[in-house]
């Protein structure tokens, strides 16, 4: 039976069919649906860890205990988990272990587009790259087999277009689940220098065997067609090559670390011109080149952003390697005299509690060290209330650094961080601020969920991925235990109170935490009645527009509130100086 599955659904299915019993992850686009889907299969255990490092460590334990294990994360999550990963490569596994890295070329939902294939080479572990959902499922099973046969963690690397594209998958039954017996073996698992040196040698010996294995892998195969042009490719790029260059001979590499050198040499010898087509870095190209083989790749195609059929068709035809197809010309002609289409950027939702907090921060003209979540959207117009955003958890350390470097900025800089992000990697930053006698204000945007990735549970929500009740961390107690003496809780939809607390806390001259607490509006089922406009009072001043609320507009110099999308949060009522915006319903909303 065939089903239409996304790459992420196929990976979850593959894990189930291969006997994986433990999975751990921290949510991150485009990886999130792997665990969400896996957790629904019978007889498995899956959890959201507070961050990717913990997820990977949970996976190490599960593997050592003998279970087949899957750990998943987005590409930048692997940065967080890199520490355990690079030494886990030394110890090797007991039960098969697969790390899924979901990369995001084009940065659809990410702060960078690093190519995580480099991690596999860095860690000296096998790397598999599926190019559709069927391969994604098959490669999960293959990865687990390789992992157990060669005693190594294995990386499966997808990209957004594999993770989030649906294609047909042959569905099988559940795999056998057997715990391998655990045996204490300090020389293998206890990585102190004397033993780590032994494992370092074992790592090199394993790579030699993996190179031999790669030469035989059925996922590395040659399709001979016209031999004047040969293309080496992997992952989603294979699909673009087949469509844009249907005549070219192709070497498709499914196992991209270590590379199958003999297969590559045989292919190179059989074609007149050799090109590597890969998204992002010249990962394959540089290694082929260092084999002494004449090859091009990044000379023809970009090393940033996503590829597609159109880019390949255009660039190969410009290089004289392809006759221009008809379609590629069409773009310019239909676009010529079109009216300009204004952008439709994502925005904070109608009724989003973050809006109140960021409106207040803007009003106080504070410098805002930002973090990763929905609230990062407040950096865009009209709020423009965030100064920078780097990575998960970075806001607190950066705000502390600002205050140590530049006293003039210190009372005017705050860190903002979501509840899930704070629990991910903000706690240590706050501990550092307290320990090093900092004086910053840290605002925890506690909307009771991991909103940006689609409302996943976390250690503060009181529930787990499997749907069981769990202890919810008490943020006030937690930050006090770190040594913060000043802890205030505000409802960000109460603007006057929020402004007063922010004024007071930024002037305090000691570490202070403001918990801006209001559940994500998308979790709140019962909306209040929509706000009403008293047209005779509205003077068309547009102050309400400064909130950037998608329910508010101004037409013919009068405010308009969309009664369908307005949730009645009341922020606009508070910013209107004329009393023209009023509560809907019976006035008791």
């Amino acid at each position, binding site marked *: 039976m*065939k089903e*239409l599955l996304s790459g992420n659904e196929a990976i979850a299915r593959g894990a189930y069919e291969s006997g994986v019993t433990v999975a751990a992850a921290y949510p991150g*686009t*485009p990886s999130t649906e792997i665990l969400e889907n896996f957790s629904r299969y019978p007889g498995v255990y899956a959890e959201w860890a507070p961050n990717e490092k913990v997820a990977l460590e949970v996976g190490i334990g599960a593997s050592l205990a003998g279970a087949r294990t899957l750990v998943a994360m987005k590409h930048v999550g692997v940065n967080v988990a890199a520490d355990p990963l690079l030494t886990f490569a030394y110890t090797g596994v007991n039960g098969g272990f697969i790390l899924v890295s979901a990369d995001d070329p084009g940065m*659809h*939902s990410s702060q960078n587009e690093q190519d995580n294939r480099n991690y596999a080479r860095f860690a000296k572990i096998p790397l598999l790259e599926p190019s*559709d959902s069927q391969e994604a499922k098959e490669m999960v099973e293959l990865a687990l087999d390789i992992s157990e046969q060669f005693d190594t963690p294995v990386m499966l690397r997808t990209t*957004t*277009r594999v993770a*989030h*594209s*649906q*294609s*047909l998958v042959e569905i099988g039954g559940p795999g056998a689940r057997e715990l391998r017996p655990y045996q204490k073996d300090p020389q293998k698992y206890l990585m102190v220098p004397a033993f780590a040196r032994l494992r370092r040698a074992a790592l090199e010996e394993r790579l030699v065997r993996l190179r031999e294995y790669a030469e035989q892998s059925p996922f590395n195969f040659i399709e001979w067609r016209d031999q004047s042009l040969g293309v080496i490719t992997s992952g*989603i790029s*294979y*699909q*673009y090559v*087949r*469509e844009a260059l249907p005549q070219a001979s192709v070497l498709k590499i499914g196992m991209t670390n270590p590379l199958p050198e003999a297969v590559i040499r045989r292919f190179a010898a059989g074609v007149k011109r050799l090109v590597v087509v890969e998204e992002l870095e010249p990962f394959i190209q540089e290694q082929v080149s260092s084999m002494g083989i004449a090859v091009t790749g990044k000379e023809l195609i970009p090393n940033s952003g996503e590829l*597609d*059929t*159109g880019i390949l*068709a255009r660039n190969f035809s410009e290089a004289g390697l392809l006759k221009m197809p008809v*379609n*590629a*010309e*069409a*773009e310019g*002609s*239909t*676009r010529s*005299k*079109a*009216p*300009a*289409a*204004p*952008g*439709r*950027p*994502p*925005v*904070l*939702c109608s009724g989003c509690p973050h809006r109140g907090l960021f409106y207040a921060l803007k009003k106080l003209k504070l410098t805002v060290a930002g973090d990763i979540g*929905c609230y990062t*959207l407040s950096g865009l*117009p*009209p709020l423009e209330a965030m100064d920078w955003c780097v990575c998960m958890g970075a806001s607190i350390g950066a705000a502390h650094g600002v205050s140590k470097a530049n006293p003039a900025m210190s009372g005017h800089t705050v860190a903002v961080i979501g509840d899930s992000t704070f629990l991910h990697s903000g706690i240590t930053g706050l501990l550092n601020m307290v320990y090093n006698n900092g004086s910053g204000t840290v605002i925890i945007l506690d909307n009771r969920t991991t909103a*940006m*990735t*689609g409302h996943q549970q976390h250690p503060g929500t009181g529930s787990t991925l499997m749907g069981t009740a769990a202890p919810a961390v008490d943020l006030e107690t937690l930050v006090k235990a770190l040594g913060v003496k000043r802890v205030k809780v505000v409802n960000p939809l109460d603007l006057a109170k929020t402004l007063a607390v922010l004024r007071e806390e930024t002037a305090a001259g000691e570490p202070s935490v403001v918990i801006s607490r209001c559940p994500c509006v*998308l979790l709140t089922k019962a909306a209040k009645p929509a706000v009403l406009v008293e047209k005779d009072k509205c003077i068309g001043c*547009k102050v309400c*527009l400064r909130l*950037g609320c*998608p329910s*508010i*507009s*101004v037409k013919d110099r009068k405010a308009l509130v969309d009664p369908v999308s307005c949730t009645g949060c009341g922020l606009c009522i508070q910013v209107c100086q004329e009393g023209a915006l009023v509560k809907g319903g019976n006035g008791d909303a």
Partner: protein
Amino acid sequence: MLKPVDILMVGVGGQGTILASKILAQAALETGYDIKVSEIHGMAQRGGSVVTQVRLGEKVFSPLIPPGGADVVLAFEKLEGLRLMSFLKPDGTIIINEQEIPPVPVLVGAAEYPPGIIEYISSAARNVVAVNALAIAEKCGNVKAANVVLLGVMACRLPFAREVWERALADRVPAKVLEANKAAFAAGYEYE
């Protein structure tokens, strides 16, 4: 040999493009097509543009439709139709809902919602079907079925049997709103 069909569905988060693409995919599967569907998740719930690409054929490679390659552009919102009409093949069909959903830059007065979108598209594309899907859906008893009206308008132009569509619809739509959705689909199917 099944003729390849590429369909680009564009709209704004919340308009029901994903349900429409699921019904389409199911109908295509039953008809025997290979199929790839590509969606970008993550930002849809935050009011951004939503683009779903559906590719059908004997064997589909890339999940992405090249610019100028779509046989059908199904626009759930006018501005999104304008933004992505460069994907339309010269002899392709653009079906466009007359609904306007102003983006935030327009709401805050930083940009203008372009006037005359349908007039422009009618002059630039050969096959244009403009539909007031909201009004039709309302007549059918459920304003939220506008997506299914649009699906119906597209359905009569694709090479699948009407019963196949209707089965897919019944499988994917909750029972309590099925009647209104059936009526919406029929109204779309018989439109023009």
